């Protein structure tokens, strides 16, 4: 029997976001090539110990030089320190395995994604990344390889490919996102400059995919699209619209979570049997401990009052998990917040309030670079008009920078005070051109229709 939090985790394939999006990519590599163990094999543990203490086989030289180089090397390959572990850039696939204990947060999503990769896809990605490493990353790869050569061979993951479309748990939109992400990751592997570069870009890409995945699984109405607005830091109208779009999506996501909570609650009650809305506090406490958490403190002394206020035990439970910051396992709020946090980490949302004048892009230049990298092999062009690129992003990722025909009516109906959409579009286009220009990605044959450079 699955508890309600487990049902949510199963449905959304995630519990919350990882602290560093690059860790998503590292976890993706780990799950793509190795079994999803919770206990690490001895090979990995020994490797981590060797790195930690600087006792690496194959390193020769004076003690001082070796010590200095190992210290530097460790900093070079470290992706992030967390309270419960350190993760490394997977310059050797084995380096993806050390855990930082944030993995359970998104393991479901990564595993679902990994299952969409065929054996050929996996081989292709492996060859693209580790078969053509930049010279310096090859040094580190070899060094790691020498440490584990004599150890017991760790088996590669046996991943049975299942098309996401066959998973009844996934909505069609979510299935499409997984399929696109698979394609993008394969394209990215062939475009980037080494594994470190791949990890950073792929992390961003996965964060973007996951934030969209949440909305897709919640069946959130996207007629008001994701407004990736680079001019939000400088244009009041753009900033307000961007905030409103995020708030609307969050509110709709919250409504969906509420609906699903009720459904999962009823489902869990049906599985354990008995009444779904017991009138006695003892009965309610017993039920909630079984369908939520044995330590859940949902039913307090004033159960009758709570029940009267919120209508039923389901209402009381929802209120508890939604409003009580001290609730045992804040799964509902964490899920809800994760969607926004992932949007921030991907680079399509601001981390500041609408009243902030702090300079910040709403469309992070690094995300632009990532999307350009994955766009080139797919579009098979070296350069294209910026407006064409934006049309492609709108169609593929649901990201819009311009108020176009597809949602102009919605804009006019709901945001009449924000002014002429052309003014907002112009501000965004100008800002976007600056982003492209600062990365040497803009070619201006004319002012009105600049080109984006996909390949120098």
């Amino acid at each position, binding site marked *: 029997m699955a508890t309600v939090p487990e049902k949510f985790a199963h449905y959304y394939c995630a519990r919350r976001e990882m602290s560093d999006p690059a860790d998503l990519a590292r976890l993706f590599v780990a799950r793509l090539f190795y079994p999803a163990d919770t206990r690490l094999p001895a090979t990995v543990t020994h490797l981590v110990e060797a790195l930690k203490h600087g006792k690496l*086989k*194959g*390193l*020769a*030289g*004076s003690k001082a*030089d*070796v010590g*200095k*180089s190992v210290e*530097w090397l460790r*900093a*070079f*390959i*470290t*992706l992030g320190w967390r309270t419960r572990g350190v993760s490394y*850039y997977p310059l050797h696939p084995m380096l993806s395995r050390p855990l930082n204990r944030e993995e359970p947060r998104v393991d479901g999503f990564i595993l679902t994604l990994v299952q969409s990769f065929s054996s050929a896809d996996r081989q292709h990605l492996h060859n693209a990344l580790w078969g*053509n490493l*930049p*010279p*310096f*990353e*090859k*040094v580190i790869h*070899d*060094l790691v390889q*020498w440490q584990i050569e004599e150890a017991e061979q760790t088996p590669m993951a046996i991943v049975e490919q299942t098309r996401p479309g066959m998973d009844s748990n996934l909505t069609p939109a979510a299935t499409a996102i997984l399929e696109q992400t698979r394609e993008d990751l394969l394209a990215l592997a062939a475009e*980037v*400059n*080494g594994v*470190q*570069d791949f*990890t*950073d870009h792929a992390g961003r890409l996965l964060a973007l995919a996951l934030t969209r995945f949440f909305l897709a699984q919640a069946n959130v109405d996207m007629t008001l699209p994701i407004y990736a607005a680079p001019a939000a830091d*400088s244009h009041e109208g753009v900033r307000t619209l961007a905030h409103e779009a995020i708030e609307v999506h969050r509110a709709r996501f919250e409504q969906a979570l509420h609906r699903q909570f009720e459904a999962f609650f009823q489902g869990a009650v049906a599985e354990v049997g008995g009444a779904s809305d017991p009138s006695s506090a003892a009965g309610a406490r017993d039920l909630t401990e079984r369908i939520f958490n044995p330590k859940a403190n949902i039913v307090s002394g004033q159960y009758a009052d709570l029940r009267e206020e919120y209508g039923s035990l389901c209402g009381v439970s929802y209120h508890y998990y939604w409003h009580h910051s001290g609730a045992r396992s804040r799964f509902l709020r964490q899920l809800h917040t994760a969607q926004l946090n992932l949007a921030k980490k991907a680079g399509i949302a601001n981390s500041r309030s609408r009243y902030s004048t702090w300079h910040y892009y709403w469309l992070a230049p690094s995300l632009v670079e990532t999307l350009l990298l994955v766009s080139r092999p797919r579009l098979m062009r070296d350069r294209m*008009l910026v*407006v*064409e690129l934006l049309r492609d992003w709108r169609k593929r990722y649901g990201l819009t920078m311009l108020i176009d025909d597809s949602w102009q009516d919605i804009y006019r109906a709901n945001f009449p005070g924000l002014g002429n959409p052309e003014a907002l579009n112009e501000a965004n286009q100008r800002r976007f051109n600056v982003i492209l*220009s*600062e*990365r*040497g*990605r*803009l*070619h*201006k*044959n*004319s*002012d*009105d*229709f600049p080109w984006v450079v996909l390949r*120098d």
Partner: protein
Amino acid sequence: MHPAEILQGYRLGGHQATVELQKAGMPSVHIDFDVLRLVEDVRAGNVKAVILTGTAGDGKTYLAYRVIDALGLDRAAVAAAQSQGGYNQDGVYTDLDLSAGPLTSARVQRLHQVLSKPGRLTLVCANEGKLSELEERFRASGLDFPQVPLRINLSRRSLVSPEAWTKVLHGVLDASFWDEANLPDADLLARNRAALQDAQMAEHVRRYLLLPYLLGEPITVREVLSFLAYVLTGGLTPAQAAEVSNDGIRLLPYLLFNALFSEPDGYVHGGRAVPVEKLLWWMFRFDPGATANPQTDLQLLTRLDQLDVAPPDELCHYWRSEMVVRPEEESDTKYRERVARFMRYARRWYALFSDTGHRAYFPFRYFDQYVDDLLMRSENLDNQISPLVKGLNLLLSGGQVGGEFDLNLYHTAGQSIAQRSVVYSKTQVGLGDFCLVSDLTSGHVGGDMYVECHPRRLYLCYPAEADPDNQIRLPVSLLLYEVLMGAASPEGGFPATLWAKERHTVGRFMGALNRRVKEKSPVAQFVVLAKANSTFNLAHDSKNQRITVS
């Protein structure tokens, strides 16, 4: 009509700024661009299907009307037919603006039909965005052409190429309306016109205009005409011009050399909006008046009347009368303001009228060399690769690798904390593996034979002998060229600012190079510059499974 009024009409927002606004019979500016050869080719029947593209102000409609006139068609009838989706009579089809009205399926089909089987002529004018949309619609509908229509992109015309610039100046300065006005020599407009007719001065102005062009800014005919109208008239009406012409000191700011570099009207400091007069804004950014050159400044300040060129009387008068402290002045504030103003005027004048002054105040040291390289054949550019590579070594190693003649492989990827350090492989890419080409060599567009083109940037390509599609290319812009050549020069040194754009392009190039170049030596050598005083070498012997640290 006074030439100033005619010229002011060409300013952005003026009464002659677009072809549609110009009235028949009114005095106007005509520039004999190469593209006018199209008119003859159409009349002779050599060209039957043509698409004119470009941005607003590039002259699409102007050219289309010339073609229409040459075919003996009534302009008014053609313009009137535009509201019905285009003119279609006697074997001639014209669509003067593809953006006017929606691109319906019927319109797309009709355009495909007439472009596939043109009668006397099929002429379509469209901006690049709309044309791209049309082509996408053709592709989506599976419509292709038995013979590709001639496509002329007027945005590819470089108005600052020597040929086009000469034509622009001839069109503006030698128009018939000047003869009719018969302006006195002392008139502001006449003086500015005479100044610009001077070949040396015109070339210096062209060099300043080349800067925005080479830095990637498109320049349209409308923008050039508006800019010239401003700098010739100083933005004044004929009456205002007549009034200031008699007052030496008041006249000074409106003389060509000052008007050319003056701050654009309505520009708000700290504002985000780009000034309307784009070219004026660019000139203002390169204002020699704000550029210091101590030696030349001293000459201007102390020996203005003994320089290689004679200054205008007004400037001399200012120098003699205003550069002294007046007895009634209790502080030096006013005096300092007058000196600053004089230096601004004098530098601008000297930068335009004298080769010595131009060299002193022009903001790029390697500009001439860059332009020469752009126009040179690729085979003759091999000598330039060496300093560029040396500059790259210096740039990527933070100035620590200076003596190399081949390019080291620098590790540029990733964002870890160790990125503050420099890592490179001693595996080198030889100079002979690179080639240098200009952008016109690398991408030729069909209709370019009708327009005056000028290359914009160089490309350092690897490997030299590979097919262009399989080459790794480093776009070498004017800025990057300046950085690399400056670093590689005997004087050395980087400019104060390294542009993010250049860093990104160099990073992409080096990343691609890292993946392409294969290590040949059994032991690969690496250098890690970890911190200021912490450097170590790594020798990677993969066969013997050993990395030696030293």
